[in-house]
């Protein structure tokens, strides 16, 4: 279909890509200048959530496996990073060893936790995966005795930042007279990895594997009868999703410098799921949009406190409450008016085009 773009179409496409790249490269500086340093940090976090949401999108959006324990893989990636790059065990391995290791280990756990759930569907799968997610969190919370592995609820502190030789992402660097702070540099690293995750997701979506996942989501029995090894492909979906989760976990640990089981609770899993549902399940731009929206919107809402004080002299609605309220309303509205998500997939748009023509 789109494999052979015509020349006159290809040129504006590259132009769009070029402008997009420039925009993404300048974004942290614009944000820093316009909104402040804390917003650049938030941008980093948003990219992290984009990776997480795209990972879960493979499991939930493509293969249709409702996984409520996804945060377990995020936690695993984070703890692997913390164990191998902090004073906790006195290990300080370089990030380019730990990140792939954590992602791989999370992927293996994806298969391990996926195996017992193969026969389950829908609600039952959701309940079991929710249980697995909680088990991992509770393990992390309690594995400080008899041997102190996770340091329990206190978590692990002083985790190494990403560092290549003497070049550390936690310190500012001066290049061509411009000062790149830690959050700026982290942005570029996260952006690079996010783009890689997007690229992999896109390539998979339009492949033999991606089609098999969607077929399983649509009708598992028909998929099996059409020659798809449903067991292997479901496990592959769990593994791929978990790998991205583990990668994001490692980055999170290095970025925060501190992790504790508290960061990996059920609410986190649900938030990531909401990003997918709100944005457009199974559709990459939708998922990215959902992740950015749900990470950045709560911060915007924080300002409503100030606005209220300026307007009325006092705060009537606590911004934190407002956040949950708007959140619930947004979800209900999306389910009612745009059940396919805010940015539905191209397939549906194709359908509208068909209906008109």
């Amino acid at each position, binding site marked *: 279909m789109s494999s052979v773009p015509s020349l006159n179409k290809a040129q504006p496409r590259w132009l769009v890509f070029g402008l997009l790249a420039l925009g993404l490269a300048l974004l942290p500086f614009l944000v820093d200048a316009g909104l402040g340093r804390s917003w650049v940090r938030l941008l980093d976090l948003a990219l992290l959530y984009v990776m997480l949401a795209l990972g879960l999108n493979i499991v939930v959006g493509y293969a249709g496996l409702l996984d409520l324990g996804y945060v377990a893989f995020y936690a695993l990636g984070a703890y692997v990073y913390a164990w191998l790059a902090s004073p906790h065990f006195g290990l300080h391995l370089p990030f380019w060893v730990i990140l792939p290791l954590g992602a791989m280990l999370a992927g293996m756990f994806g298969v391990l936790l996926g195996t017992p759930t193969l026969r389950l569907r829908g609600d039952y799968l959701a309940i079991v995966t929710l249980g697995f997610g909680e088990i991992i969190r509770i393990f992390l919370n309690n594995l400080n005795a008899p041997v102190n592995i996770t340091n329990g609820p206190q978590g692990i502190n002083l985790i190494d930042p990403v560092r290549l030789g003497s070049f550390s992402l936690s310190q500012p660097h001066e290049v061509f007279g411009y000062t790149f702070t830690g959050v700026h540099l982290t942005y570029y690293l996260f952006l690079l990895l996010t783009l890689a995750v997007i690229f992999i997701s896109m390539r998979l979506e339009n492949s033999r594997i991606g*089609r098999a996942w969607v077929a399983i989501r649509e009708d598992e029995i028909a998929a099996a009868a059409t020659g798809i090894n449903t067991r292997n492909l479901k496990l592959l979906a769990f593994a791929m999703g978990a790998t991205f989760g583990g990668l994001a976990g490692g980055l999170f640990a290095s970025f925060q410098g501190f992790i504790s089981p508290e960061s990996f609770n059920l609410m986190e899993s649900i938030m990531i799921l909401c990003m997918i549902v709100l944005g457009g399940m199974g559709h990459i731009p939708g998922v990215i949009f959902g992740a950015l929206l749900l990470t950045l919107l709560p911060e915007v809402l924080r300002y409503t406190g100030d606005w209220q004080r300026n307007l009325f002299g006092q705060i009537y609605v606590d911004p934190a409450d407002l956040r949950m309220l708007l959140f619930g309303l947004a979800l209900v509205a999306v389910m009612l008016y745009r059940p396919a998500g805010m940015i539905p997939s191209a397939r549906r748009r194709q359908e509208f085009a068909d209906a008109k023509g």
Partner: protein
Amino acid sequence: MRALLTVSGVSKAFGGLQALSDISLQVHRGEIFGLIGPNGAGKTTLFNAFTGLYTIDRGEIHLNDTRLDGRKPHQVLQAGLARTFQNIRLFAEMTALENVLVGRHARTASGVVGAVLRLPATRREEADSRERAHALLHRMGLAKHAHRLAKNLPYGDQRRLEIARALATEPSLLALDEPAAGMNKAERTALRELLLQLQADGLTLLLIEHDVKLVMGLCTRLAVLDYGVKIAEGTPDVVSRDPRVIAAYLGDEAL
């Protein structure tokens, strides 16, 4: 040997209900074999047993030299037995083209690495799959629907798309579960033409059908099931005169 599918002594019970008792039959290479019988006779159960959706209690099923019983559905398909469903089971949210492309899954091999890096082998495979899928859609008269979602196709076209998806798996035996169900007269005639064409191309067909007229005119040979027991097997001529078949369809008083 001429036998493509050999079923010997297959039994299957659901709790106290004996759905299939000691069924034996042979489908020969190149024929259109009909499986008929009143509602609840066990036809679809037998289909599900062939295609690995049910495990059978006793008996053996062979396709050529490959034993099918005890295998998973995707292994049965890999061995060369493709099927359609009585209540159409398409991938509703995928386009017609994608539905047929899924049919290529079992005959292609690219994995994650090939897909992500778009290796030359993967590209070749994908191009080949698309070419075959388009050809199949064209043959089924579905070319104009290639990029429409399966769920939005007219009913008759959905049936044809399901056949196209099954054909994409390059089966040696195609099993159709009531392909004419719900079709109007024109659609039935077109279906009949299509099945004869497929037979002429060397495909062996096995079909469950309620439309006795269609079956009698189309099938080389028939087997009749009643209450999970095979009561007759032979050419349409012979079967239609069999007193047990007449009794099963019209009641004992008709004799």
